[in-house]
């Protein structure tokens, strides 16, 4: 029996790539979840926390947990934001109370054995392992399992798929040149696979990779895992 799911739509997804949220919602509904969206949510506090403003982040974290107080299960399409909640809230709030119900999207699907969500995406795809998902939450094989069950999809691994793309939040602006050099390596590895798309479970990595790819005028496109899983064969 699938639980009723509260959608965690990170501020960044809300504003910059809402389609990722829409696609996640579509997949969740398709597999039979009832979903709801706590409209009072804003930001989990990660930007403040990562920059060292823990006092500011602490207030946002407390507020965030309150917003999701009534939720049975919370699912978000961003490894980094979910890692903030599950991995860093304990350090910030000195408590793990109520954190176990938060899941990254691919994690949630696999927890409920939804390896095949009936998607169809007839393209070549390569995977970037988002750092926070991979190293904070241990999400590495899960997204690949899900992709292998997508009709028509050809998965091609890139070299060093687990090397950082260079985004790192404010890092990408404070140290723009280093960040871009990292992005250059990452997109170079992705392009070598000659895949049509690079996918990840973190929209912020994808925004960075996309920005570099487009600056290079590369034909390669980025797509969030949720959007691949939401795709269905043309009728």
């Amino acid at each position, binding site marked *: 029996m699938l639980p009723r799911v509260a959608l965690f*739509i990170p*501020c960044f*997804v*809300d*504003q*910059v*790539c*809402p389609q990722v*949220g*829409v696609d996640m*919602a579509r997949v969740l509904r398709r597999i039979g979840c009832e979903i709801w*969206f706590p*409209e*009072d949510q*804003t*930001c989990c*506090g990660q*930007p*403040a926390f*990562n*920059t*060292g*403003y*823990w006092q*500011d982040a602490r*207030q*946002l974290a407390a*507020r965030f947990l309150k917003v999701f107080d009534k939720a049975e299960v919370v699912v978000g399409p961003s490894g980094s934001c979910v890692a903030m909640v599950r991995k*860093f809230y304990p*350090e910030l709030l000195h408590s793990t109370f109520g954190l176990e119900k938060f899941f990254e999207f691919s994690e949630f699907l696999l927890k409920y054995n939804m390896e095949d969500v009936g998607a169809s995406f007839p393209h070549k795809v390569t995977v970037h392992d988002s*750092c*926070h998902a991979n*190293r904070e939450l241990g999400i590495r094989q899960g997204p690949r399992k899900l992709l292998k069950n997508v009709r028509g999809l050809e998965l091609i691994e890139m070299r060093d798929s*687990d*090397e*950082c793309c*260079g*985004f*790192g939040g*404010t*890092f*990408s*602006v*404070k*140290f*723009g*040149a*280093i*960040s*871009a*050099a*990292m*992005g250059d*390596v990452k997109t170079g590895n992705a392009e070598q696979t000659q895949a049509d798309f690079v996918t990840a479970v973190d929209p912020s990595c994808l925004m*960075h990779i*996309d*920005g*570099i790819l*487009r*600056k290079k005028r590369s034909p390669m496109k980025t797509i969030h895992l949720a959007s691949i899983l939401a795709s269905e064969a043309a009728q």
Partner: protein
Amino acid sequence: MNPAREFLLNAAAKSVDLAHRKIIRKNMDHYEVRLAEGVARFADWEGARDVCSAIKDDAIEHLGDYLKQFEAKVKARGGVVFWAETAEEARDYVANLARDRGVKRVVKSKSMVTEEIHLTSALERAGCEVLETDLGEYIVQLRNEPPYHIVTPAMHLTRKEIYETFKEKLPGITTDEPVELVAAARRVMREFFFSAEMGISGANFLVADSGMIALTTNEGNARLGTALPRIHVVVTGIEKVVPKLSDLGILWPTLAGAATGQSLSAYNTLIGGPRRQNEVDGPEEFHVVLLDNGRTALLAESEQREALKCIRCGACLNNCPVYRQIGGHAYGTTYQGPIGSVLTPHFRGHDFDHLSYASSLCGACTAGCPVKIDLHHHLLRNRRNAVQNSRPLLERIAFRLFRWTMLSSARYTWFAGIGKKLATLLRGTAFDPLREWNRYRTPPQMPKKSFRQMWRDGDV
């Protein structure tokens, strides 16, 4: 120029230096292959990391006791132990010793602590000729450069560059054949080994229960440099102590594995004091300088003291995607890469806070650390410390505003709308908030509606 500004400019220059990036990438590719082989030799690499981590945890938790134990054993064998609180005290001790004993020539085996306290220039001021005997270290010494990497100091140089340096500094170099270059360096070093009155080494480990220093090299230079001269001086950080001789059974192979993928380094030496009666080899005098230089201050911070567990294997540098773009010299510090960024603000103060921010927090360093130091989380804690001490006023205001905005969904929605309009309006002007982004990347195409708007409109 302040260190932060200097780092920013150096790092930016290195980031676009494709030739430089290619050299590091090639070395790191090589390292990755060797590391995989090295790790595969362990039946349980994760288990080895756990054991090493526990040994070093114990050592750090009882540092004072183990050091006293070590000191007593060394003294009993006729060695001298000097506790140096600052870099200056350590430098002066060694320089005065050299002066007192009429030392003219000094051979050094590779030691980052001597780099940390700038020992070579102090000895030169005391009238000594100082020679580095690790080949990589010798090459950077000839070039008047600091080491580029904790373990492989000349990693940034091509064979051609090394050839050019040798041709300029050494007589009779005619080809760039590695065999000839090494032979030329060896000729210089051999002469020094046999004529130097003082040999200086670091210590990979100080063994408390035996009063031994453990040295690891691949060239055997530490063995010659500590056995031939009549005075052996060990300069080391206090955090290098480990409880028992048997601990080396796991620490040595794990260090070698993480550093170079070897099962063991080629030469592993234990030294416990000066030459004893009836012994024919070894130095007449044996001094150990135990350097604090900020380490006890870090030890006092229970939350971050585990950074002192570092065994200087360099794995975090090799794994770090930032180091892989900018290399070791851009940091402007003795210890580079993730561990350097963790330690330097503690050792040298808030002028180096910027290093804690020069990370994407990807965690590759932590994943590779053989003693399981939680490196990237320490960078986060360093950032918190930086905010508690001093950060630019504008940044403080920005985050205060950020918090105020995000504490209300109405304010958040309003500001997000304004923000998007403003960004469009200012695009291309000097006030464009996305200017830094656009310099290196094309900005994302902004959607017409936010998710919450779509939800309200029934589009989801």
